[in-house]
């Protein structure tokens, strides 16, 4: 297969190899690329890596030009979210690129299937240059997994909070409609909503939505 982008210069290759040699000795020298279309999530991971002293990190959020950027950055570790449509393009690049001084392969630690399964569940995959020891990769992957999980939790909480807010707004609007049309006070309107929900085996917010919709469609009718 072909490749995109020009060959890496001899100088860049030498620089990269020097850095890789350094990476065998100190965490700080390990360059990590984070590929994620969600800039927010990438920032959370980057911050986590920074906290443990892994400061040489780069975030790539745009799929355009991604291979050329990777080639210039020559990272030792690439973290990418599983939902990223560019994964096939990247795997192809890692498999055949002659531009990379050392091959990059997916982290598949068969001695620790649980770790890889956890990564798949968290939604992240890791590609590592050949020769980097597993002991040094494991903490990076574990951290990425924890940060991905934390991000999912945050999103779930945010979604819940938004839904709760929206539900409350809908219920308030339905109550206001009942108060106006039926001449009820607020507790009376709410009691009516609740009774109807229980009788029809629906959630209060579902009944409220029906009222709001009906009002929007037929509220002007006598």
């Amino acid at each position: 297969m072909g490749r995109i982008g020009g060959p890496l210069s001899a100088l860049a290759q030498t620089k990269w190899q020097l850095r890789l040699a350094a990476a065998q000795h100190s965490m700080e020298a390990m360059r990590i690329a984070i590929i994620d279309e969600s800039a927010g999530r990438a920032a959370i991971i980057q911050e986590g890596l920074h906290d443990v002293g892994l400061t040489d990190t780069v975030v790539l959020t745009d799929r355009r030009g991604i291979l050329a950027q990777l080639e210039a950055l020559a990272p030792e570790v690439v973290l990418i979210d599983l939902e990223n449509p560019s994964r096939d393009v990247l795997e192809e690049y890692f498999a055949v690129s002659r531009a990379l001084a050392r091959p990059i392969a997916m982290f598949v630690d068969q001695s620790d299937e649980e770790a890889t399964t956890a990564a798949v569940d968290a939604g992240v995959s890791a590609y590592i240059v050949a020769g980097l020891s597993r002991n040094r990769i494991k903490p990076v992957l574990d951290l990425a997994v924890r940060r991905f999980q934390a991000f999912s939790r945050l999103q779930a909480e945010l979604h819940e909070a938004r839904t709760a807010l929206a539900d409350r707004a809908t219920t308030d609007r339905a109550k206001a409609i009942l108060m106006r049309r039926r001449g009820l006070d607020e507790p009376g309107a709410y009691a009516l909503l609740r009774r109807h929900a229980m009788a029809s085996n629906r959630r209060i917010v579902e009944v409220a939505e029906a009222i709001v919709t009906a009002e929007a469609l037929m509220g002007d009718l006598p």
Partner: protein
Amino acid sequence: MSLDRVRVGFLPLVDAALPIVAREQGFAEAEGIDLVPVRDLSWATVRDRLLYGRTDAAHLLAPLAIATALGRGRPAVPIAVPFVLGLNGNAITLSPALADVVSPGAGLGEPHAVGTALAAVARARLAEGRPLRLGVVHRYSSHNYMLRYWLAACGARSDAGVETVTVSPPFAAEALAAGEVDGICVGEPWNSVAVDRGAGRIVLVTAQIWRRGVEKVLAARTERLTDAPELFHRLIRALHAAAAHFVRAGTIEGTAATLARPDYLDGSAELIRRAISDRIRLAQGEPPLHFPDFMFQYREAANFPWRSQAAWLYSQLVRWEGLPYSADAARVAEGVFRPDVYRAALAGGPAPLPGANSKMEGALARETGVGSIQGRLMLGSDRFFDGRTFDPDHIPSYLASLDR
């Protein structure tokens, strides 16, 4: 009755139709299965979820199933393919300017003529230092193998003048429009998206290269299949019933509307309807052309996993990766396809069951009756465009006969 849950990974492509139809039309439920489609956006992720047990089965590129079993690029994992989800359905779309040069007439091109003209363009472009670049969806795809097979037979071996690069299908039209690639070989609806945007013209469909080329398959980890054979038999029956429904008259509108849903393909029902009714618009503004063999989901026992098809894919893997032929690897590759499981699942039903596990590929020039142990089976022409035949028992001599 409580249902057994079966999670099936898929990519949003029209040939993911059978598991989706099996769920939506109740064929899975009738077999006691709660079929849960799991949508992903890269084959790498479809494969990873399958390998790590997050799905039970997956809509997968046939060559990727074989490459996974052979451990190409990662540790080998035994994979079983008991059911083929479809034959062909891909097309070659070139930028309008290039299409006008290599396929000047209206309609689909003639493979030899287009290939020879493309080879000449490739040589000129190579001399200018800007090699022709074609996008395929994956290194281990029938798209890649058919494109290379065709170009090589027309004098343009892809490692001498034509670059092939991986493009992700949803971005293929964009890559073509931006000039990142000169052409794409992808499945539907992505060729049509490029055509409707005016970014490309369809010059060939892959069925013109190999009339009955295996495309997507239902893949599972062999371990999972061995643990629950009866569950997989029910899944295969559900998929087979879905395939019969898929080709039944009057179902196309409904199927297209289902596939277009945001949780499935999230695309245009009109483009999907065209593809599944074998009607393809070749150029912007033209009426769609009816090409009856565009995609094959049911007829002629299309779902039967012929071991000879797996063997052909292995021959191309060896050819294009520059690997030595290995009888052991060939055995592993052929063993991925499981006609035994297909027969066990569909025995006693209406499905015609071939008697053989393998056949000469490309040997049928016209519709021919073949031996079956159940039902009556006629197979249509399965020719390769260059008239070659492939004997799965003689892979080394086949490889030697190709321009290596």
